[in-house]
Each structure stands twice: as structure tokens, then as C-alpha cells.
């Protein structure tokens, strides 16, 4: 569904990658590997359309993403280093906003998702009282709610505990089985059988 062809990206003279080809199809989970500074995050942001300093073409179902931004953005869910959780708001308030940017959502679904990621009892407390791992979990609740076909996750495992890691792996597999695709960076060894690995650098 997502194909990138002959990508080239340089940042201030340093070539991050050149002639990079990538194909992500339905039901696929792809892990990006590479040392620090090899351009994993940059590649992800380029593929999401957040960063446009690249050359080459990126297609979503055979059509350039730039030509169908609305279509592409509504099928995409991206969670970056900064997970997009405001410290001032509570988990529920955060999700109400970030989900409603893409789809209609009712409070019931939000509460259910929060319970699933282990945040029962924290729904209404402001996020600055929560830990970094719990922030990550708030953002993972979006994965449960979202109908997006493509997930792009940048280091989603870093702050999670063992239980959280297992749960996220489970979520990824569920997404793949449902015909979605996942692009993920992590230094963890993922416990997922059908995993494609792309190494950078």
C-alpha cells in the first residue's frame, strides 16, 4: 500500500540515505533498524509527510501522497518521540482531541481503550501526575481507537514495562491480521513472528 521509490535525503551535507526503496503491503509489520543518527526518525517523518526535504517519490496505493494528502492523512496514525500528550490535560481530554482530528469518537470508546492500556483510575487526572510510561500508554490508546490502516510508530517501546511491551506487540499483530500495516523503529528484539526488517546506514 505504501511504496517509496529512490528516496534521497541529505541534511547539511551529510547524506542520510540515497536510492532507498521501500514497499509496505497489507498485513505487514516492518521494523526499521539502524544505529543512532542513521536517519530512522527522518525517514519516518518523510514517509508521513511531515518532512518534505527529500527527493524521490512516495506513493499510497499507487498515487503520490502529496496529491492526496487528505486521503492519506485519514488512513495514517503517527506516534513520534514526543507522543502528543499535553501535560495539562487529562488522558480523556487528550484523547478526545487527538482522536477527533481524524474520526468521530465517543467517550465510551475512550474509557474502554484507556482501561485496556492499563490506565483505569487515571482517566481524569492531569497528565503531569503520570509517568513517562503512562504518557506512552495514553498514546497507545489511540492505536486501539483508531481505524487507521497505516501505523507509523517511532520508538514506542522505550518507556514501556515488560507487560506493556507484550501488549503493544499484541496490538501490532492484531493490526496486521486486520489487514493494516505497521512501520516501527525500536532497539528491542520484537517477539513477532512475521517481521520484515529494514536496516539503515
Amino acid at each position, binding site marked *: 500500500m505504501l511504496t517509496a521509490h529512490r528516496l534521497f535525503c541529505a*541534511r*547539511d551535507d551529510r547524506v542520510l540515505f540515497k536510492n532507498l526503496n521501500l514497499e509496505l503491503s497489507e498485513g505487514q509489520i516492518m521494523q526499521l533498524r539502524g544505529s543512532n543518527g542513521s536517519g530512522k526518525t527522518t525517514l519516518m517523518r518523510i514517509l508521513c509527510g511531515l518532512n518534505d526535504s527529500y527527493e524521490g517519490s512516495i506513493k499510497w496505493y499507487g498515487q503520490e501522497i502529496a496529491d492526496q494528502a487528505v486521503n492519506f492523512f485519514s488512513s495514517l496514525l503517527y506516534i513520534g518521540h514526543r507522543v502528543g500528550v499535553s501535560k495539562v490535560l487529562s488522558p480523556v481530554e487528550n484523547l478526545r482531541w487527538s482522536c477527533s482530528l481524524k474520526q468521530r469518537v465517543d467517550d465510551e470508546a475512550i474509557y474502554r481503550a484507556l482501561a485496556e492500556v492499563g490506565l483505569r483510575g487515571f482517566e481524569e487526572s492531569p497528565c503531569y501526575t503520570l509517568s513517562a510510561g503512562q504518557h506512552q500508554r495514553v498514546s497507545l490508546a489511540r492505536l486501539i481507537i483508531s481505524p487507521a490502516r497505516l501505523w507509523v510508530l517511532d520508538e514506542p517501546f522505550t518507556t514501556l514495562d515488560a507487560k506493556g511491551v507484550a501488549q503493544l506487540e499484541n496490538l501490532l499483530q492484531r493490526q496486521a491480521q486486520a489487514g493494516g500495516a505497521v512501520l516501527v523503529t525500536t532497539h528491542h528484539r520484537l517477539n513477532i513472528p512475521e517481521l520484515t526488517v529494514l536496516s539503515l546506514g
Partner: protein
Amino acid sequence: MWLWFSKLGSPKWFYELSGRWLPWLTAAMIIFMTIGLVWGLLFLPPDYQQGFTSRILIVHVAVAGTSLAFFPLMFVAGTITLVWKMKLADMVAKNAAILGAWFSFVTLATGSLWGSVMWGTWWEWTDSRLVSMLFQLFLLIGVISLRSALEDSETAAKACALLSIVGCINVVIIKYSVEWWNTLHQASSPISTDSSSPNGPEFWIATLIMIVAVYLFLSVSLILATRNEILERERRSQWVRDLVLKS
């Protein structure tokens, strides 16, 4: 057409072409500058109202007229940077901002030196040209400081391009609103606009020559600075290496 455009955007091509033009432009600049200055300083008869201070005006009008070119220039360069991502346009824009700030400053300085004779004051808020030139200077300083604050050169290029476009629209609005504001305050002003321009065809011919000279200077200086920028940004490329080895 498209080929020509992308060729124009190639720094190497520009470097070679400008290298060929530069001697001619410089020669033309020297000729016009010499004629303008010698004529302006030695031969121009004193104006019947302003006496020898009309010699100030020749320089002032030439610099002021040329500095009006900067915002259109940066507008075009900014649009090209944002739409076609052409690096060359950004290199020009970067140096145009700095040179433009110089021009605005010199316009203000020479203008107030002239004003101190004609109006008896160094600064006159009721002169709309001075006031809008002051704000043009402020806006250019804003663009320059934004560029120096942003570290990533590509982000800086696009951000400055956008700010220049917004700034250009603003300069126009500022110019008209300041003029309006002035007409309302003119009653209390010591200036009458009629006396500010000396008569006599000689004066205008001398000024015209100086304007051409200053425009030539603008292009020479901008080309020199842009060429430096090209050398710095393209320092890894083979053609710059060859060039350095040859020199």
C-alpha cells in the same frame, strides 16, 4: 522552458555565467559611478533653492530608489524558494536581506543629513518616506535575525522565504498607512513637499546616472556575495574542488 528554469537554478551554472558577466558589470559600474560623481560634485550648478545641498540629493535619491527594489526582489526569491525549492534563490535572498539593510540604513543616514539642512532637524516623523524606510529596515533586520537564529539551513531558507513574502505585503500596507497618517499631521509640519525636489534637467540627468550606477553596484555586490555563498554551500561538490585547485 522547464529545462531552462532548472538550469538557471543550478549553482554551478550561475557561478560560471556570473563569472563571465562580472567584469562587464564592474566596468559599467565604475564608468557610471565616475561620471555621476564627477558631474554631481564638480559641474552640477547649485539649485536656486537648495544651493549645493542638491548634491546630497543625487546620492540620496539614487540609494533610496534602489532600496525600493529589495522587497520585490525578496518576494520573488521567497516565492521561488517555497514553490520550486530552488537553492539559488535562497542564496540570493540571504544576501539581499543583508545588502537591503545596508541600503535602508544609508538611505536614512543620507536623508537625515539632507533634512538637517532643509528642515533644520535630523529626524522628521512627518516625512512618510523616512518613516516607512525605517520600518523597512526593521523588517529586514527581522528577516536577518530569523535566519541567524535557525540552525538548520533548509528550515531557515523556507522560514525566511515565508517571512519575506509576508513582510513584502506588510511593507506596502505600512507605506500607505504611514502616508495617510502623515497627511493628517501635515498641518503641524515644517515641511512642504514642493521644496524637496530641485528643478532643472541637469539635476535629473545626474540623478539618473547615479541611479544606474547604484543599481549596477547592487548587482555586482549581490553577485559577489552570492558566489561566496555558492562556494560555501557547494564545497563538497567536484566542480568547487576543481575550481579551488585551479586558483
